[in-house]
């Protein structure tokens, strides 16, 4: 079987800016090289995606001990299935699609994590207004982390793919293998839940500014 052709113009789906398009073309070229068992290409691809996958898998699974294993599983599948990659699809969509499925499977296999306590959220946080911005940000990160823990892996994936990866809902639907309306609905519910949990934080935020 011949390795797939690398697209030379752009990918189907959402339009990309020149920089993104260049990166996607570069990654598609690397995937094509995987069909010839080129380990250097795999190393480069791994380097391009490691941090993004780490973040994404961490967000979805919320289990530190699973992240590395899932990344390896994802890249192993990329290596093994490179020839089945559809060149009309963005490489990141394909890779994140695998990552989402692997992360979800890992969470399922690992069993339900212990419920996180949200008692801290009820504490008086008026003192936050007196802290410096760095510390406030740290607290905010922790709060967001805790708040995201209240959401399902699917909801967290939508949040991460939208805000960190900056993807359009149609692309998120392709990654998660669901209809576009499902993505919108998941985001809607995630927003509603986060709005309730983060409401005290937002108040504090206005105090600091």
């Amino acid at each position, binding site marked *: 079987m011949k390795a797939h052709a690398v697209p030379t113009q752009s990918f189907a789906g959402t339009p990309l800016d020149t920089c993104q398009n260049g990166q996607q073309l570069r990654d598609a070229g690397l995937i094509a090289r995987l069909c010839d068992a080129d380990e250097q290409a795999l190393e480069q691809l791994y380097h391009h995606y490691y941090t993004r996958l780490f973040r994404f898998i961490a967000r979805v699974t919320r289990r530190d001990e699973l992240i590395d294993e899932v990344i390896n599983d994802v890249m192993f599948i990329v290596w093994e299935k490179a020839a089945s990659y559809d060149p009309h699809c963005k490489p990141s969509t394909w890779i994140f699609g695998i990552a989402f499925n692997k992360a979800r499977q890992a969470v399922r296999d690992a069993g339900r994590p212990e419920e996180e306590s949200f008692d801290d959220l009820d504490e008086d946080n008026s003192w936050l207004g007196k802290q410096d911005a760095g510390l406030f940000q740290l607290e905010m990160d922790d709060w967001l982390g805790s708040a995201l823990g209240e959401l399902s892996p699917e909801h967290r994936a939508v949040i991460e793919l939208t805000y960190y990866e900056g993807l359009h809902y149609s692309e998120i639907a392709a990654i998660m293998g669901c209809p576009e309306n499902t993505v919108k609905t998941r985001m809607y519910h995630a927003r509603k839940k*986060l709005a309730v949990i983060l409401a005290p934080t937002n108040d504090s935020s206005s105090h600091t500014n």
Partner: protein
Amino acid sequence: MQHINKVSDSAHQELSQLLPWYVNKTLQGSELKEVDHHLTVCLTCKREVVQLQKLAHVVIKEGSLDSAEQASFSRLKKRLHTAKPLDMQSLPQQNRPEQLKIGASDNVRRISRARKQGWINNSVLRPALAMAAVVLLSLLMPRYLDTEVKLGNEFRTLSNAQQNPISANEIRVVFAEGISQQQKGKILKRIHGQFIDNPTAQGVYTVRLDRDMTPTDPLGVVGMLRKDSSVIFAEPAYELLSSTHMEKEK
């Protein structure tokens, strides 16, 4: 009038759902225009956009990451050479991305097979190495234990260290599984050695080197053998003087 309100409520609902993608700037064309226009008339959505921008800002903030990328890649690389080709059966159907449902590529399978043939499979190598370690321990431990008990005044210092002249040019070798007698013969010829007895039950051969013919000392030969993939274990067969004496007494 009621009808107009109903339509605008439904439009508000629909456009409100697009706000996260308005914030991440991926909306295009008519969707973007509609949301832009809606925001000029809907205060609720305008406030929602501000909240979503705050949320986006926090999510985008880089968290502390474990920068173990290189170590992680090394593990993957090891796996590429040892693991079996991915079996589609092992992935539940519902968990497979659409692209993966196409099926495994013959090309990748072929390449994967070729890769596997080029490397020693760990499933064979590991038990063999474990066996070799057990053999080594079983050979050496009784000698050391005996020495400890019966050594008496025979302990040696660096100034009078000696090696048993009988065994100084002997080495112990374990060959990899599947190595034929002919191949073993070739290896022996290369190092100018010969078997001095039959292999032990664990497959350990003792080889005596021809001092005049061997191009290097026993340690050099051991080094050569260790680089040979047909040999999974090679060590000098040094013995302590005390144990040699004891054997002679017996």
